């Protein structure tokens, strides 16, 4: 098991290195100039003075190696060009938890409600409940989350004045964003859970259990549930990584100081260091989550665990 983990971690580090390199060269090649956003319309001579400070007048390979050197020796993603005097690390440390809070709550809703709805739909297959759930699922998947967000803001916030329309700091600020974030995910989890349960229902051991006189509830809990979970685990892993990123659009609409907004602003400002820092952060999270998913498979399904250690 240890060897397995080490191998995956090593591979993960290599992946990270490739991602950082690719991102560096892609964003350097993209049109747009970090200096342009600084004082909007500055004469060329003055721009050069600022470029020199951030080393932007050096050839691209020199900048790349300088950047790598700085990253490896200090673990610092570099000083942001737009947010002078601060590094991407500081922004990640400050704002990732905020995105995470909303993300985790939304994820909990998504997983719990999604799994529940999926199982109900599968067990009541063909009946009215199933049809209702399936229609809702399709709607929730097709309609973009920001449309939901706008509707929620308008009716619950603005018309009925139940919660504030935007902002951050009080528990009431969580309500609309969490619902908006959760809707799409609930639908996805419900859909996958339903199909997974349906494929399990026709398995031999389910028929055996019923034949042996097991109560339907016990059959559902003990046998169907755990066996249907595998696809859900696959989805949840990267989703956990995603919650730190936050949805940019929803963060923008609800004025939530999450990481997603900084990412988009950094890209449109061509703030190289911020873009690289945040990209590396997401990449790292994603890689870690995939490793965790692998390990979790082993926990959920003993066959996989035995299969691995047998090697």
């Amino acid at each position, binding site marked *: 098991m240890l060897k397995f983990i080490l191998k995956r971690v090593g591979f993960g580090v290599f992946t990270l290195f490739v991602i950082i390199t690719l991102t560096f060269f892609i964003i350097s090649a993209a049109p*747009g100039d970090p200096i342009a956003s600084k004082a909007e319309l500055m004469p060329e001579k003055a721009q050069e003075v600022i470029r020199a400070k951030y080393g932007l007048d050096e050839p691209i390979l020199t900048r790349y190696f300088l950047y790598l050197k700085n990253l490896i020796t200090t673990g610092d993603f570099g000083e942001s060009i737009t947010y*002078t005097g601060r590094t991407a690390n500081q922004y990640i440390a400050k704002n990732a938890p905020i995105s995470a809070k909303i993300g985790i709550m939304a994820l909990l809703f998504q997983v*719990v409600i999604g799994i529940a709805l999926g199982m109900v739909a599968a067990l009541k297959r063909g009946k009215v409940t199933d049809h209702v759930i399936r229609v809702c699922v399709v709607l929730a998947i097709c309609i973009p989350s920001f449309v939901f967000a706008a509707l929620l803001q308008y009716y619950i916030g603005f018309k009925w004045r139940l919660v504030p329309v935007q902002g951050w700091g009080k528990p009431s600020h969580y309500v609309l964003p969490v619902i908006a974030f959760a809707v799409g995910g609930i639908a996805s989890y419900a859909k996958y859970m339903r199909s997974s349960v349906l494929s399990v229902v026709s398995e031999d051991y389910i028929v055996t259990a019923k034949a042996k006189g097991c109560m339907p509830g016990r059959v559902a809990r003990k046998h169907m549930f755990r066996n249907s979970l595998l696809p859900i685990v696959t989805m949840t892993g990267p989703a956990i990584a995603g919650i730190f990123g936050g949805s940019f659009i929803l963060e923008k609409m609800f004025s939530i100081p999450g990481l997603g907004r900084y990412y988009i602003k950094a890209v449109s400002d061509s703030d190289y260091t911020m873009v690289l820092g945040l990209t590396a952060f997401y990449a790292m999270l994603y890689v870690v989550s995939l490793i965790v998913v692998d390990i979790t498979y082993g926990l959920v399904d003993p066959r996989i665990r035995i299969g691995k250690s047998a090697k």
Partner: protein
Amino acid sequence: MKKLVSLLLVLALCLGAMVGCGEKAAEKTEDVAKESTEAVEASTDEGTEAETEAVEEVSYDEDQVYRFRDGSEVTGFNPLLNTTGPDNGVANYILETLVTSVANKDDLAETRPAACERWEVSDDGLTYTFYIREDAVWNDGVKVTANDFEFTYRTMATPEVASSNAWLFDGIIENFGDALYGENGVKPEDIGVKALDENTLEIKLVKPYSYFLDLLEGAKPVREDKWNEFGSEYGTAPEKMVTNGPFKVEEWEQNVQMVLVASENYWNNENNIIKRLERKIIVDSPVAAQSLIMGEIDDLGLREPELIQMVEAEGDRFYKVESESRAPEFYSFNAANKYFKNAKIRTAFMLGYDREKYAEFILEGKAKAIYSMIPNNISVGAELYTTRVNGENEIVKTLSEQYPDPKELLIEGLKEEGLDPDPANMEVKLATRGTSEFSKRSSEWQIQQWKQTLGVDVKIDMMEWNVMWDRVDAGEYDIATAGWGPYYNDPNGLLSIYHPVNGYFNSDKTGWVGEDADRFGQLLDQAADEPDLQKRAELYLEAEKILVGTAIISPTYLSVRPVFVADYLKEYRVNPHVNTTDWTDFYTQGRQN
């Protein structure tokens, strides 16, 4: 199954609990509202009594708070490095430079002493002497001295600092440009800014620029000891700086809200009425409009018609103020292009569309058509430019009368250049300054107009604003959708950008060379040296007759934005030339939220 149902119920209850929090807050505001309505009614009764005594009694609200929105967060509080629009807005609250400009009771921009108590200008207009106030102090109690300003300017002129506003003073203050670009061995200590003593600051200019005072707000002060203490982290957080303005930052939740409170040490704090500012970040306009109606913010400028309707439906709760921009929107022709090197062709394109219709259809009346590069609200000295030149600056109108058929003019121009005289065979591209709905609509309308009037099939080249400016820099465009906001209240702020040698749109970018371009540059240089304001205005007119007269640019419109203001905000003024509010005047009365 039962467990699942109970889990769902628990979650639903949790949601309900949070909704409850919101409800309680709503109830609370209602009670407060009842209290203050009674208070307002009481004061109105007193008011009528007071009126008969012929004494004006203004009943101020007890808590003088102003809540407003900004769509973007500041990038920091360092006045030398953080100079984007939002940064400048906040810098105006927390920092104060030598003078300030506010809108007076007649809604005209007025320059008033701020950190200084008075200033003197020499007869030749080259030396300014500022006398710093005795009672001006920083928020930590230390006195504001002339040395602080001397240090600020010297730091700006230091190349390694890479100050983003430094270029404003290049060619304005003696030796500033040389020090900044490290030329001729000039050091930052050699620039024409000297603290003669603790309270006297002397600034020497290169030429008698009458708008020099307008430029001063680009150099908000820092103090040497704190600058050295915090180094590159100066201004990255409210604790890492000193401020000398009317407000100081009490709370900063990035991308959510900034709370500023009146600074007790500020020299004029007693006369300032508003004691607290709440600056909320709301990015989306529809959400901002909802916030306005819900009472979360007190004022809002809007562009979208459906949102304007929504606010207007609230009736008397909000009144409307029109905010006229001082930044003209215009088309810029590439004079190196095979068509646009000919003045007749350019003029034909300039005359080939109806500006009034543009303002009406595309901007739904939120704009004013302009016929001159210089908006009507720009002054030369104390008088409006357009008054000084008797409205002769509306050059586009004059040319329309002279050439009633732009298509004919176009064909003449094509023949002159030896090109195919059929306009339908021309290949021209219009570069947009964005990819939004607005950019699409306006550019499509524009090419339709040119097709109708001139018979030319212009193609739209859609791109983001920063990409367009990159193309302009590289000279890779036919027609660009340009616009420019002057940094100070003087025609030079707009005309100088096309100076063929040192303008932002110099000959390399515009391809404008030859006699006309040289003469234009000469006129601007002459005007810069001319201390007589009337003569100066006339020189600007001559220059405009070349720039707009030969259609190097085609002025189109000026945006006019409605701003909705809550009825309890009083003495609210919008003027494009001021840098801050007159806090001794502005107040709230009758706020219920």
